[in-house]
């Protein structure tokens, strides 16, 4: 029941906001903020009720939906989906909250889009029925499409079409894979898919079907170029949700579908997946170094960081000898931690860029410099987020990368070495941006007249900073939530 509320209350609120119309924008704003915050506390309540010691689905709800095809409205969460849902419910009110400072026209529609999007994202993370999952997965595109297409920058139409075509094309293949699995099992229940026996060739085809969808979403090289374009054109809130949550659906998909349904194919494809992950970490990291647009830089940084998610999800397959459950467990946990951490850090960075963009209306790094002289408080947070992005110990950014590197080293020393290069490359592109944007002498006249961050801008950033620090200093509560689920997943994969 509780998940049901998490999904539908935001969506209904979104509809109400649309009905209230433009004239009552202020009311809508308050209402949305209230409801989305309440949703966050509801998810916290769910977290408190959640039993860490169980690997099975909890808060399950199963209602027949389309009997003829045995499709159920089937919801439930486990240790993998819970942190991602909490990430969603945490960031959604923040995005709605910041709408007021950065947006002028049709704000009620903007807010409504995010509310509807929130519900659908939670739906994606909690669907236990593959068909339902697919419905949420596709429906989610619509609000995101509108957010970029209506409130985006100059080149938004190109970016929107690119975003839509990529993700839509990817998910069509996933639909084929899901239908095939339905034909094999007579059920759309994801956990039923885990038990079906498939030949290696069948597994590979299914794996590829899912791969198209997930690789585009995460995104993996070479299907990543939609992301920088989408980020550059998207409004701040859109970028935040895109980077923080939408990308995670790819990683979630690998853990929920690819690994447990097609373990043999995953094993078969692992060398390719690992290679692509390393390309993401190194190649994309170097590309980030070359960026002149702050949002593009962070977008590339996101792709590079997501390389650790895919690396963690596949690296254990190439262990010599039998697969060690502990290593699988460690690697997948690392991937999960990296997802949550990146969700927070990228959100914070995009919000920070938004704070600067609202003042100077440019994202071009060259036009910045010396921000710290006029905005010292803001700069403290910005530098903190940058250091988190560079995986500083004590911030969440470090935990995921450390865990993945530890697991990778157990598998292969050279892959570990290559992935550890991120310590240098990640620090280089992030801090170089900081050097050019935050530090230095003021060269752009406009900066001199800018006020420091206002309290209303500081609140969301400080909240995220607190969580980044908390997870960095004490990640145990997070991993405790996931442990049992990931352990049972490890059995499915390596058993």
């Amino acid at each position, binding site marked *: 029941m509780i998940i049901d509320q998490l999904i539908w209350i935001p969506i209904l609120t979104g509809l109400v906001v649309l009905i209230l119309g433009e004239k009552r924008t202020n009311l809508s704003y308050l209402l949305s903020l209230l409801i989305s915050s309440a949703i966050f506390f509801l998810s916290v309540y769910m977290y408190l009720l959640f039993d860490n010691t169980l690997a099975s689905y909890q808060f399950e709800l199963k209602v027949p939906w389309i009997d003829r095809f045995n499709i159920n409205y089937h919801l439930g969460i486990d240790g993998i989906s819970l942190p991602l849902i909490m990430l969603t419910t945490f960031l959604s009110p923040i995005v709605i909250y910041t709408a007021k400072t950065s947006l002028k026209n049709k704000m009620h529609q903007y807010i409504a889009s995010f509310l509807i999007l929130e519900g659908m994202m939670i739906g994606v993370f909690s669907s236990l029925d593959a068909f339902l999952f697919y419905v949420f997965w596709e429906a989610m595109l619509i609000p995101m499409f509108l957010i970029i297409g209506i409130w985006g920058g100059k080149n938004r139409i190109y970016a929107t079409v*690119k975003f839509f075509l990529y993700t839509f094309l990817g998910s069509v293949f996933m639909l084929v894979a899901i239908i095939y699995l339905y034909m094999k099992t007579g059920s759309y229940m994801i956990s039923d898919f885990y038990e079906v026996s498939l030949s290696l060739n069948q597994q590979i085809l299914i794996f590829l079907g899912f791969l198209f969808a997930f690789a585009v979403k995460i995104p993996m090289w*070479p299907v990543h*170029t939609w992301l920088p374009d989408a980020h550059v054109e998207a409004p701040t809130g859109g970028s935040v949700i895109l980077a923080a949550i939408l990308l995670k659906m790819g990683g979630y998909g690998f853990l929920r579908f690819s690994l447990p349904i097609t373990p043999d194919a995953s094993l078969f494809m692992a060398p390719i997946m690992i290679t692509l992950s390393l390309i993401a970490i190194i*190649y994309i990291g*170097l*590309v*980030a*170094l*070359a*960026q002149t647009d702050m949002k593009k830089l962070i977008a590339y940084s996101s792709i590079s960081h997501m390389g650790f998610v895919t690396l963690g999800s596949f690296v254990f397959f190439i262990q010599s000898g039998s697969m060690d*459950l*502990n290593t699988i*467990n*460690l690697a997948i*946990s690392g991937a999960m931690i990296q997802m949550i951490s990146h969700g927070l850090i990228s959100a914070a960075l995009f919000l920070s860029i938004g704070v600067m963009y609202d003042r100077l209306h440019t994202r071009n790094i060259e036009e910045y410099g*010396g921000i*710290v*002289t006029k905005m010292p408080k803001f700069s403290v947070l910005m*530098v903190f987020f940058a*250091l988190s992005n560079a995986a*500083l*110990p*004590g911030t969440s950014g*470090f*935990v995921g990368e*450390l*865990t993945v*590197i*530890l697991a*990778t*080293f*157990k598998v292969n*020393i050279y892959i*570990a*070495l290559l992935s*550890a*290069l991120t*310590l*240098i490359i990640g*620090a*280089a592109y992030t*801090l*170089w941006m900081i*050097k050019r944007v*935050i*530090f*230095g*002498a*003021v060269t752009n006249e406009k900066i001199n007249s800018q006020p420091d961050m206002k309290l209303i801008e500081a609140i969301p950033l400080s909240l995220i900073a607190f969580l980044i620090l908390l997870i960095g200093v*004490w*990640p*145990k509560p997070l*991993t*405790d939530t996931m*442990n049992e689920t*990931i*352990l049972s997943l*490890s059995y499915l994969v390596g058993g």
Partner: protein
Amino acid sequence: MLFNLSLIALIAPLFTGVLAGFIGKKIGKIFTNGVTILGVLISLIISIYILILILGNPELVFNQNAYTWLSIGSYKLSIGLLIDNLTVSMMIVVNFVSLMVHIYTIGYMHKDPGYHRFFCYISLFTFAMLSLVMSNNFLQLFFGWEAVGVMSYLLIGFWYTKESAIKANFKAFIINRIGDMFLILGIALLFSIFGTLDYEHIFNNTESITSNTVKLSSSFEISSLTLACLLLFGGAMGKSAQMPLHVWLPDSMEGPTPISALIHAATMVTAGVFMLARMSPLFELSTTALSFVLIIGSITAISTGLLGLVQYDIKRVIAYSTLSQLGYMVVAAGVSAYSASLFHLMTHAFFKALLFLAAGSVIVALHHEQDIRKMGGLKSKLPITYITSLIGSLALIGFPGFSGFFSKDALIEAVSHSSVYASEFAYYCVLIGVLITSLYTFRLFFLVFHGQLKDENIKVKEPQLSILIPLILLAIPSMLIGWPTIGPLVFNDFFANSIMQPSSNDIFGYEFTDSYHFLTHSLSGPVVYIAIFGIFVSYFLYILKTDIPEKLSTAFNPFYKLLINKYYFDYLYENVFARLFNNLGNSLWSKGDIKIIDNFIVNGTAYRVGRLSSRVRELQSGYIYHYALMMVLGLALFLAWVVFKSSGLVL
């Protein structure tokens, strides 16, 4: 009880640093410096108290986890404290120098608008450094390791509008990150073997893995221990600025002088040396790693010392001296004389912090002039700075009786008795290094304090008390600390519970009785004479015949150019490596992402689909014979396929 006390010692600087950072500006300068000094003072007093307790009752040494940081499956990573003699000694050194620097800063930074920020940073740095040395596991070591790096980054770039400062701090962070990458890989290797990162567990089980190997290729295997040591040492090379990762340290002088004393001389840069001592149970099992450590240390000791001879910036001369002395400490670790290495770390912390702070005093007195060519004759104008500088300089060159003498002489003694591969090379390096040290130290000293006053009009007077008190307080141990401590620390078993090293007889080949006999024993060796000879040479070159250095530099021009250009390391890093990666990033982006993926594949596909569809439109011409032709062609193709397929030729 001791655990809680240690915890307070650790947290106090963190707490006060945060206070200073958040509310210092609102309350006032006295609050800021008062509260941060209090934090460090508490920590120092507790450290001394623990030392006294431990000396009285060695049983009190403890190793305890504070909390579980992360637990995944059967793996557990914890945060905890290991308090033994090594830890306590480091705590005292760190806190003492930090306290001096805190007091000094009151005077040095009193006009700076970033006053509160500065106190916040140095307190947080103290916390980071303490968490590094108090750690009982590799994870927390890495935490502290990177945290001190960040504080160093923020402090080098303290004057953030200065382009040279923010260039230097970026460089320092990236070069340190190269070392950190090796460190984390070394940690990962140990984790892959032991499944834990606890010192105790790992150090107690090293024997069991001596035969473990890591396969680097199908035909090449390396001992796991050796590889782990080499990787860990990679981290030490970054933080302790060993060649070729030393380039960041001279540039770090862009930061305010107090932090040059605290971070870039006394504490942070010695973290690598501390780590070598802490990891001695590992390094002792790999002579390959020890030889590597020895060679790197020797090269650093001699080559960076030479660079100090041609520098004109007062702080940079001392910075190169620091590099060279760090080389000495690493050399000592390379010959398994960890106690001597640590002893040199401690004496060096005192006299080098003293020299930096004295340099800061000169800089303040001369209204922020740092070029030693514009100095001279300050002896009578700055008497206290002069005397303390002299003490620091004598300690640095190892003048008999001064602290540096005891530590350096013991260290060289150990090198001369070592039989590790490359120890002979190392011996000559450190011996020549003694002369070089003496030369650059007294070149600086004479040029700054003796000779003629360059500008008579400028008003020069001793800076305020808060600057002078730390100088005096640091001068005392710089002069005297060697006498009571060398016996227990270097020759006896003070470090026995924390460091694994051969017996002192094996290391030094010499029976130690007391400090006085150590001194007389040293007088029979060459080291002290070389050092004193160096003073005379400097006096001759820089006071009597001041035109000779210039003639020398023209006579040996290629060599001089090499030194002036710092062996072209900066050139190599900036113009070759940095440029290479930048260009690589640019071309990957413009060629790979934009040209190939976006323009050719993505938009190209869209374009081709568009063109194809217009062609297809043409096909639908409406003429029957077009359709008929197509059908015949299609049929022919289909038949051809069937024929080939059945004959097994293609597909």
